[in-house]
């Protein structure tokens, strides 16, 4: 009985982390689907989102505004605005000039950008980790007895609901809106879409902005969940999210969601049954194994190399 409860608890924890990973993974997968590059600086954009949210929350507290929905909403909006602007600027400065060159050139540029942004925040805000106030406290008891309680906290519920809303909105946007249709067209064939009068530069910028906005949402949520942020906050999370994107099949949006959830569960199970220190090892090993044996991921389409 206890084993089952423990297992369910790990499952809930894993799904929480996993859905946040999925939000970040969307940014990787959309960018890869359209221009075929790994946006290495995406994790830093997520980190900047978390910092901005924290700044907004502390600023509001200083102003004496404490009504939770307002605080969360303002923090969310600030984080989304700053991160999206960052995403737009990064694409403009570091990626657009090198688009279409040899594969490694945009990647090195992205690594440079990632180092730059990490140190930008490090210099501006200090390298120590800063506590993130727990705005949403408490939780629901689902079962169990005195020895072990199965519970789900409100913050976990918030993460589920927010992720669900964001994902649904994104799916609707991609499938129904004009811009979403243009996105799909560009990801199928950039040159052809260009010929048909789609402003591909605008679509690519839009992709970066959407990815960055979702990463900012994840930044706020995971900042509250973990309870602290530091300038290296984005590096590992970015790698994990990239793993999730590859796991689900890079370029595929449902794949990113699936990959995020699987990765989250795998991690929670590792820290629950083995040791928390090895959870990073598990996710990196998973990444290596998937790339070796099924580089297209679970839902991805095989890439045909044209000569």
């Amino acid at each position, binding site marked *: 009985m206890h084993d089952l409860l423990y297992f369910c608890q790990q499952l809930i924890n894993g799904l929480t982390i996993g859905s946040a990973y999925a939000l970040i993974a969307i940014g990787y997968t959309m960018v890869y689907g359209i221009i075929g590059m790994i946006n290495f600086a995406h994790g830093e954009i997520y980190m900047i989102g978390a*910092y901005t949210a924290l700044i907004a929350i502390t600023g509001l507290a200083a102003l004496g505004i404490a009504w939770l929905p307002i605080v969360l909403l303002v923090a969310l909006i600030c984080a989304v605005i700053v991160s999206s602007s960052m995403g737009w600027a990064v694409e403009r400065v570091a990626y657009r000039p*090198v688009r279409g060159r040899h594969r*490694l050139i945009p990647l090195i540029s992205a690594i440079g950008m990632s180092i730059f942004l990490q*140190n930008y925040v490090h210099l501006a*805000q200090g390298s120590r980790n800063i506590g993130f106030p727990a705005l949403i406290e408490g939780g629901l008891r689902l079962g169990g007895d005195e020895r072990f309680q199965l519970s789900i906290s409100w913050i976990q519920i918030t993460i589920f609901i927010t992720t669900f809303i964001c994902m649904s909105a994104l799916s609707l946007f991609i499938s129904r809106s004009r811009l979403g249709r243009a996105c799909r067209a560009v990801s199928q064939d950039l040159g052809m879409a260009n010929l048909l009068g789609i402003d591909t530069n605008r679509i690519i910028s839009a992709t970066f902005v959407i990815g960055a906005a979702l990463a900012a949402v994840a930044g706020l949520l995971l900042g509250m969940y973990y309870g602290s942020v530091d300038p290296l906050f984005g590096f590992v999370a970015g790698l994990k999210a990239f793993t999730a994107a590859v796991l689900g099949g890079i370029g595929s949006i449902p794949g990113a969601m699936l990959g995020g959830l699987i990765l989250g569960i795998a991690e929670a199970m590792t820290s629950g049954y083995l040791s928390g220190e090895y959870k*990073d090892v598990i996710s990196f090993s998973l990444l290596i194994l998937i790339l070796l044996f099924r580089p297209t991921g679970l839902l991805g389409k095989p890439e045909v190399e044209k000569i």
Partner: protein
Amino acid sequence: MMAQSFRHALFCGVITLIIAWPILGLKLVAEGTSITVRGADAFTWAAVAVAAVVVFTFQLFRDRLMGRLEVLQALNPLANREPLPDAKRIRLENIGMVLLIAVALVWPFLVSRGSVDLATLVLIYIMLALGLNVVVGLAGLLDLGYVAFYAVGAYTFALLSSYWGVSFWMALPIGALLAALFGLVLGFPVLRLRGDYLAIVTLGFGEIIRILLNNWTSLTGGPNGIGGIPDPTLFGMEFGRRVRGEGNVSFHETFGIPYSSEHKVIFLYLIALVLAVFTALVIRRLMRMPVGRSWEALREDEIAARSLGLSRTGVKLSAFTIGAFFAGFAGTVFASKQGFISPESFVFLESAIILAIVVLGGMGSQLGVILAAIAVTILPELAREFAEYRMLIFGAAMVLMMVWRPQGLLPMRRRHIKLKGV
């Protein structure tokens, strides 16, 4: 047209404000358990405003400015000159290398102990960068976990010496070969991956090695690291004040000179110099051998190279293994120089620095990489107040290099024959 560019410029200016102001202008300060937000000083605010105005003005007059730049380029007399004849260029390069080595040989006897120590570090970075240059520059395989092989070399020496008392000279080849073995074992499955996937896999591998070193406390001491790594000996002569190993004699007693701690530092420097020169010469030779040619062929066009009968795995694996070998070399020297190692020295940032050196120097170009290694290591030491901006500047430099000059500052030139009158 003007209205459009004004709108665009305004947009860019506002974006600059948005990305700079909250992070730079509002500082989070922890006070006990609570945190508060403080505005930054007036200088930062002014800087943010100036940045926004500069971006605005630049975007407003962008077209005209770009036109001017082209005029400037035409004025540059060096822009369109004929490249030097090959024979002359190679002679110049050789003279440059010999001069560099001559200066490096005399150098430690003229300067202070601290400078020699720094120079040893520079030489270690030169070895690392030359090794990575084979993998990234020549074979075109982006390896983001290069530091893992460096760690394998360093930890091999540290563990062998602390468990079995193996000396530096024994550990040097063992460390390098073990690192090469790691490269071979890792490379074998992953090298069929495409460029950017390979980069991520090697990054993951580097992180796994670091996490293992950090958590395998019983073997590696975990985050506490391993200390008491012995110094190298010269034909059994030790450089310490007292002899540690049995049957050894000390350097200063043998030659009847007073003990000085500088001997050891200079000796280490000379070892590093010899190894760095060895690395450079071996790689230089390899570059001109068939294997080196096939690295470049595979980098330029994989499909064409394979259709000419090159084995993709074999060629890539050789580059990967050779790169790892020299990283192991450098790792052993590093462990000996520090006397103490811990997983802290082998983080991803270290890989990024080595990659930055290779990228800045010019991928594939040996002289360029050596000069870049010297510059990247020494510049932050020369300007101390500037040191905390080091990584910020590296990052920015990597982006700018990729945008403006992806071939590097001193690009590699290959021997070629030009047909006249075609």
